[in-house]
Every structure is written in C-alpha cells, then in structure tokens.
C-alpha cells in the first residue's frame, strides 16, 4: 500500500532535510521505493509551482488527498506577540496552516529538536514552540490531548540535526504498521534509550577519569569540557554520523542537542561542577557513590592512559 508524505518547514535551518539526504542503505530513493512512499511535497525537492501547490494543499484540507505522514521540520513560530507573523505564507501565519494539516494527518513526525521541543527561539520574541512539547512540558503547539488519526501523539525525533537513520527507521516502522514504543518525551525507544556516550572511543579514558582539560589533549570530555554524552540520549556513537565518526570521537563535546531544553542557557564547552565533580550526573546516580567511584577509578588509572598513549 502506498503512503503519502508531506514535509513542511517552520522556524528551522533546513539541517534536518540536508541530514536526511545522507541516509544510506537505504538511501532516500531506495527508502521511498521500498516503502512505496509518495512525496506529495518537500520544500527543497519539489518542483510544482505555487498554483499546483495551492491546489494540493486544498485537496488535502478537503480530504481529497490522504495525508499519511506529515513531517514537520523547524519550530512553530507563534510570535511576535502571539501573531505568528514571524513565519508566514502569503501574509498568513504558517502555524495556522500547520495546525490545519495536523487535523488531517494519519501520523506526525517532528523531525529535529526545534520541531520536537521548540529549540531555538523558545525564550525569544519569535515565541517558538515544538509541535507537542514546549521544552520539557507536554503541550506545545497542538496541546496535551492531541492525537493524530492513527491514535499516536506527535512522534518526536530530536537532535540538531535529526540523524538520517533515525528518520528512515521511523518512516519504515510507520509505513509497515509496526508498533513504535515511545519514551517519556514521545521519542522511539530504539534510538532514544541509549546514551550519546555509549560507543564513544574515549570511553576508556572516561572509565579511569583521565580527563581532557584543553582541546586536542586526549581524554574524556565530561569533567571539564562540557560534554553531555553520559547525560543525554541519542544514538550518535552507535550509528555514527555520515557513517564515519561523531563529535565526541573527534574531540567536540556533546552539547546535548536532543535535550528538550536545547540550547541550554549555561555556557557550552564548560562543565558546571562542584568541587571538580560535574553538577549534572548520569540519571539515577548517587552523588556520594559517584564521587567514591570516580576517586577510585582515577587511582586505578593505568599509566598508558595517564600518559595519553591510548588511541581514540
């Protein structure tokens, strides 16, 4: 059975679209073929002129064309002052159109952190919000009780950008009517119950608390450099980026871009700490035990790590 897909961009940078083009095995073309997905509209890929586009939109809103999967990229811009005029189509707030599409959609996927939780502009004059979450809180643009026609809430695929495999996998599950188990922020467990830090090639340094204090020095980035890998969910070091690497592997701290409050207000590249121990510890860890464990780990660190001989 073929499915229709409509992709709309709100307050975003287009990065989720460009990230999606990196999908491999299947790539986007194979994916659309295998899943029999018909792309009704994508702002960067479609050629239809604005009249055909308007006719298509009308047909969807009048139930003449089914809307199986609605992908939303970018935040929903509600400002300034609640008008939505900071993001418009032909002079009208785009949010109103997105709201109308949401009533017709069988499934909605919020692609990326901005569409999921609001992301950039949540505390600004643009009054950005996510499709069904505003930062940590259920609600957002569509409200707490919203369900798409399938009975599911908006499926959130956070990440800045969203990894192509995560989107491809979610589309596969939906197109094959497979159940998607979601976590507390309505993100599929398959990709969002693993920590970013799992699979990082700096894990040995992490284990023995051999920490990096300056860029390019080999070590774990958690204690000083602001890395949130052990705190944040995401498959970056499991499925890797562009099939090659990850930020933490090359020495860029994880900034926690899947977090509902991304971009956090406190400084990046710096770990907030109390007496040298990070303020934010992995979920469920007791601070006292953690301090004891890290103290012992540092004492047990082998020389090859202390001398940074181990590769990354």
């Amino acid at each position, binding site marked *: 059975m073929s499915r229709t897909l409509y992709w709309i961009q709100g307050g975003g940078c287009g990065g989720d679209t460009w990230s999606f083009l*990196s999908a491999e095995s299947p790539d986007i073309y194979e994916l659309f073929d295998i899943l029999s997905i018909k792309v009704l509209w994508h702002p960067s*890929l479609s050629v239809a002129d604005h009249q055909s586009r308007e006719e298509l939109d009308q047909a969807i809103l009048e139930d003449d064309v089914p809307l199986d999967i609605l992908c939303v990229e970018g935040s929903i811009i509600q400002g300034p002052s609640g008008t939505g005029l900071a993001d418009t189509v032909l002079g009208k707030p785009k949010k109103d159109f997105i709201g109308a599409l949401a009533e017709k959609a069988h499934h909605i996927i919020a692609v990326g952190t901005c569409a999921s939780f609001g992301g950039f502009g949540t505390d600004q004059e643009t009054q950005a919000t996510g499709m069904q979450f505003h930062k940590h809180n259920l609600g957002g643009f569509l409200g707490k009780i919203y369900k798409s026609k399938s009975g599911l809430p908006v499926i959130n695929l956070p990440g800045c950008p969203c990894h192509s495999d995560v989107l491809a996998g979610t589309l596969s599950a939906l197109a094959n009517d497979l159940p998607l188990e979601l976590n507390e922020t309505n993100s599929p467990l398959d990709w969002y119950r693993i920590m970013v830090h799992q699979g990082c090639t700096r894990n040995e340094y992490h284990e023995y608390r051999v920490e990096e204090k300056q860029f390019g020095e080999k070590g774990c980035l958690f204690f000083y450099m602001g890395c949130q890998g052990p705190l944040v969910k995401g498959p970056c070091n499991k499925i890797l980026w*562009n099939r090659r690497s990850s930020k933490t592997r090359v020495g860029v701290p994880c900034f926690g871009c899947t977090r509902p409050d991304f971009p956090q207000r406190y400084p990046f*590249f710096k770990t907030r700490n109390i007496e040298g121990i990070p303020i934010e510890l992995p979920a469920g860890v007791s601070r006292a035990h953690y301090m004891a464990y890290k103290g012992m780990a540092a004492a047990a660190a082998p020389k090859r790590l202390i001398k940074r001989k181990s590769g990354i």
Partner: protein
Amino acid sequence: MSSKNIQVIPLNRSEGDLEIHLEMDNDTVSEARSVGTMYRGFENLLKGRAPLDGLVITPRICGICTTAHLKAAVKALDMMAGVPVPDDALRVRNLTLMAEQLQNDLRHSFLLFTPDFAGPAYRGHPLYTEALKRYRPIRGRSVVETVRQTKKIIEIIAILGGQWPHSSFMVPGGVVSVPGQNDISQCRSLLANFRHWYERRVLGCTLARWSDVRTPRDLGHWLHEKPEHRESDLGFFIRFSREAQLQELGKGHHRFISYGAYEMPARTALNDAAGDSYLFPPGLFENGRPSPFDQEKITEDVTFSHFKSDGAPRHPFEEATVIETPNENNEAYSWGKAPRYDGKPAETGPLAELVLASDPLIKGLLEEDGPNVFLRQLARLIRPALLFPAMDCWLGETGVNNEIFYIKNEPQENGRGFGLVQAHRGALGHWVTLEGGKISQYQVITPTTWNASPRDGNGIRGPWEEALVGTLIKDPEHPVEIEHTIRSFDPCMVCCVHAITGHGKRRTSKIFC
C-alpha cells in the same frame, strides 16, 4: 495605456521561505521587492551568552552552510584572542569548508536550479524531454546521482570534524581534532572518487582538459569537440541555457564583492609562486576593475527595514537589531537590512569570487554579456574544478610536519572581533563584541543579506531586486524567469537572519494606489 498589476510569487527550493513582490507594466517587471517571510532572531539570542557559545549556535543558522558560519564565528574569536592559527588547523578548517562547498555547489545546481528546466514552463523547449530524465524531482538521473555523491564528499567533514551538518570543531587557536594519517587517507579517497564523478558526469572531461577552456571561444570549441562534452551536465546546461537565452536574464548592478576565500597556510606548496594570502582574493570589482577590500567600508542601512534607526547607515559593530513595529505611515517594506559597501550595494557569490580571482573564462563572458543568470550558474558549476587541486595539496600536507592543530589560549573578557569568510553563496561576516566575559553584541551579515537587500536611503535597489527589473515574463502562469533570476543567486533565506514579513497585503494595496 499600460496596465499595472501586482504579482506575489512564493519561491520554494530556496533554503527557507521567500516571496517576490513584483509590480508589472504589461508583461515586464517594473519594480521588484524581495520579502523573506521568517524571522528567527539568532543575533539577539546570542546576547549575554558565553564567548564560545557562538561556535555552537551560529552553525545552526543554516543547515547547508553550517561550516561556513562556524568558520566566521571562530575567526572573530581568533582575532580577539590574538592567537595564531597553526598551519595544520588552517588546512583542516579550509578542507572542511571546501568539502561543504562542493556539496553545496552541486546540490544547488542539480537539486535547486536545474529542476526548473523540467518544469511546465519549458514544455516546448527542444531539450525538455532530456531535462525531465535528468532533473525530474526526486527521480531525475542527475538529481539521484548528486544526492549519492554529495553525501560522500561531506564524509570528509565527519572524519575531520565529527559530523555534518552542525559540528563545532573549530575553536579559537585551531581545531579540536587531531586527524591521523589513516583519516587523511580516507579523505583523499573520498576526494578522488568525487573528483572522478565530477569529471565524468558534470564536466564530461578531465580537469586538465577543462583548464584549457580560457575564453568564450574556447568554451564553444570545447562544447563541440566531443559528444561527452555536450552530454555532460555542464554541456547540457550550456545548450539548454542558450536555447532559453538565460544570458539575457537577471542583469543586476555589475558590482561584486568578495571577502577572500581560503587563507593560505604559511608553508604550503600552493603559494610558492605568487605568495598570495588567499586562494581566491578579497576585493571589490566595479567599472571593470578590482580594488582592495576594506571591512571598515561595510555598513547596513535600515531606511526601508522594520528596525529602529536614526537614519544613518551603521558599521556592523555600531548597529543594533531592534524591531520596530510596522506602521502604515512608514515607508519600510522589509525586515531585511540593506548592506552596503562604500555606500553602494554589491552582488556576492561564486560569480563575484571568480571575477575577483580573474578567472579568464568568467571574465571573458562577463565582458561579453555582463552579469546574468547563465553566468552566475556557470560560475557555480565550474568552481569545484578550482578546488580539487588545492584540496589535494592540503590533504597531502596535513599532519606531515609538526602536527600542531591547536594553540592554547584564553578567551578575552572584553573585545571586538570580526570573522569574514567566503561562504558558498558569497560574503559572510560575523561581528562580535564581548563585555565582561559575555557576548554583548553579535551581528551577522550573510551572503543572502547582501543579495536580497531592500532599497537603501538613496532609494537604490538591492542586487536581486535590480536584477529582476526589466524582466519580461512570457507566461504569467509560469514566471520561470523570476525563479531563474532569484535561484541564480542561490538564495538562503534561513541565513538572512533579519528577514521577517507578514505585511504583504498592506504593501500590496500601497502599490495599487
């Protein structure tokens, strides 16, 4: 009597949303206004944040030129820290930006620009059927190949910088990564494969053969030399464009700006001869001559923009981004600011870059026809040919001598710095002020802010507004001439961070009056 009417054309296949508001005199455009339809407020979002936060936040202004923003942001911080950037770090910064540029130039050409050749406006064009095979959305042969090849070349950025898009691997004093020889070998293989594809399918000949094409006459000769040349995507683009007379479309001011692309490392085999400090030099080109570039001459004018101002154009260090509520008595029509160089608008992009680099073919064609849609797009299609030799050289030199990728430094508490780069669409600048260890002001002028500029206080149109005026629209149902002209500038509205509107209706009625 002529009939006057107004057309509003929403444009997709630009990065972000854009509407073109035209005033028509019969079938000819008599006035044009470009209207970005989204405002994201990135500059204000950076205020009060830590100095290095710009390295995480500004790449997210744009999903396709994310590395260009990272480089502009880090150069502003380098300047404030007063720290030298080691050669190997410079190479990594350049190589990643070049890989992103290869991706951008080919994706823009075959995903965003040439699909118009397969659109309804060209049903009668003799090459339409072939255009459909190549550029039909999502299914066209060249479209599919471009997606498959470009995602490979950006793997270079993932190897050297962790991921694409949106990494933050450039830091003041260098880069955080320390690539090993195997990483470099992998990058070289990716580059060689991509180059092979570019030669075989895009050019239809080797880089060596292409480098002999130095005049418009050479180009004609090259086109007829072999079927491979005519059938390549470049050959097809030339044949299709000539038939559609794209060299007659989208003229503009004929004034170009480039900030200079790819700083030369102190020690590299590339600059032995000329001693140039950039691969492509900075400058302003007008009246047929280049002149030296001076960033002090950059100002932004907000006379026709919805921002508070005392009327005087300001240098980016001196200006603020304060929204002014639109008002009926106000002549402002856009939320875009109007950047000016020495008081006048300037076009930026691959064409500007190659004109300032004195590329003989591009300059020859410019002398024949002036700036136009065909030439802008040709410059974008052939620019990759100029990047491969430099990339190959710098990959070969990375990590070979002293392997220093970072020099330790402390961020300043107070200061001012700017970072200027040539992004894929042209001149990109970040101007940063720090006070008390926090960002107190951040101004970004993107290439699209230059090209999509509204009028200034002297009533002078922005570059693509100017390029639209006088355009004859053959079929009002399919105004492909407008789409070509705007897309030849590779518009990136998500980058045009000031852009906002919502007042099309009000202004439309004004035009009817």
